[in-house]
């Protein structure tokens, strides 16, 4: 069953059309990466899924229930970490989590709250006023709050923003663990593509209010596979000579040779080719990696618009 079905969703603010018939299908138990440039409509879409915003047309089903009709029931099964949120500065973390446990009506004793705090790495600071927390600590506590009701669907907007690399890794592990153990469906909206590559099984790219791409995040996108076109100085060059463990020849047109680089960074591949006396004049990136996919979807749209 799909956790979320969004069909032909439309939303406008006055004359500004923010969602222009967006459709999206998120499977139960998957981590779905929602990508798109600023102003693409991601936040609006997430707010609509959360029931914080009305929409003009279309349909949203969450766990088979119509969003508008089963609002109260669904809000007990969903939780979210907004990009911008603040804590009640006068509270301690335990009080903060207890407040939300009470608001969700979940029976949450102090042991469970402490366990949650430990999971997000805040257990040493449980009695510190949250007003004194750093941005990263606030993010972690926000995440703990988002897990307080054991949500079936978790919506995260830039969850690792403001976290140091260790903090990011811990949040990644926590989310993967949550997804694996509880089967929690996670929608992750972020500009950090590394987060998506590490966490998501499927992605959707939203651009100008429409979902321009939706699909599995393929292994080649996850495994840093790139496609490059090289210009060689010598036209009589034997292309198969460039094939190594990490570089695979694809085709040749005159002095242009197309190769796939797999498992190493492109600059290392070029370095290796030069070391093998292959006379490369220039190199052009063609495809590969999530970053490539993202740019190709959004830039293509932009070029279409310009033309």
């Amino acid at each position: 069953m799909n956790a979320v079905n969004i069909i032909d969703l439309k939303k406008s603010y006055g004359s500004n059309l923010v969602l222009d018939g967006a459709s999206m299908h998120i499977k139960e138990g998957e981590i779905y990466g929602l990508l798109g440039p600023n102003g693409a409509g991601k936040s609006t879409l997430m707010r609509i899924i959360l029931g914080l915003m009305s929409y003009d047309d279309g349909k949203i089903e969450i766990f088979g229930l119509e969003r508008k009709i089963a609002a109260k029931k669904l809000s007990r099964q969903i939780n979210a970490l907004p990009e911008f949120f603040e804590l009640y500065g006068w509270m301690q973390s335990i009080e903060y989590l207890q407040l939300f446990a009470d608001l969700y009506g979940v029976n949450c004793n102090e042991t469970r709250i402490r366990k949650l705090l430990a999971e997000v790495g805040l257990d040493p600071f449980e009695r510190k006023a949250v007003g004194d927390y750093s941005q990263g600590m606030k993010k972690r506590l926000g995440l703990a709050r988002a897990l307080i009701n054991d949500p079936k669907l978790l919506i995260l907007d830039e969850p690792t923003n403001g976290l140091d690399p260790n903090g990011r890794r811990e949040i990644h592990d926590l989310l993967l663990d949550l997804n694996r153990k509880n089967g929690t469906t996670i929608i992750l909206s972020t500009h950090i593509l590394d987060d998506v590559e590490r966490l998501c099984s499927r992605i959707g790219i939203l651009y100008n209010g429409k979902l321009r791409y939706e699909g599995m995040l393929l292994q080649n996108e996850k495994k840093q596979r790139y496609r490059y076109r090289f210009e060689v100085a010598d036209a009589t060059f034997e292309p198969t000579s460039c094939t190594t463990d990490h570089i695979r020849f694809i085709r040749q047109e005159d002095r242009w040779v197309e190769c796939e680089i797999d498992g190493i960074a492109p600059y290392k591949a070029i370095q290796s080719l030069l070391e093998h006396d292959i006379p490369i004049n220039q190199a052009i990136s063609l495809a590969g990696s999530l970053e490539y996919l993202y740019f190709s979807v959004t830039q293509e749209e932009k070029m279409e618009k310009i033309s």
Partner: protein
Amino acid sequence: MKRLILALLASTIVSWGQPVSITLHQPSGTMKMGDKPIFFSEIVNHGQKPLMGIVLYLSLVNLDKGKEHPVDLEDWSAQKAVHIDMLQSSETFRTTWPMRLIQSGRYGLFVTAVLPERDMPVTSKIVHFDIAPKKTIVPSRIWPVALGMPLMILLIMLFIRIKRGRRYD
């Protein structure tokens, strides 16, 4: 004070020759601060002709020893003067004077009538009365509250601050 009493006596003597006489009556019983007694006056036309445009007004004098002075009626009475268009011969006109007793002490109250065609005013006899003091706002009750309440709130704030470790906002 002597001058005031002499003036009042003089006006009373002169009034003997006047066509009107005024009497002022005080309510029975003792009076204390905060009471709202109603005094009433009667003015009678003894003359043969109707009198036009008579103005009656009330005067209050504090007669406490050493504090003798006329009292501003601002807070004491809403009705300070009455205008009588016409008083027929032998007619009596009654006026009520509601008072609000503001301060304790010994007082004299009288009513004066001014007739437009006469040079001398006509006054009633002075009604003497005492206003017993009444405890209104008691300073010994105010001070503890006025100082105690802010202090108590400050102490609560201090207690919370100590209990929670610091001030959070």
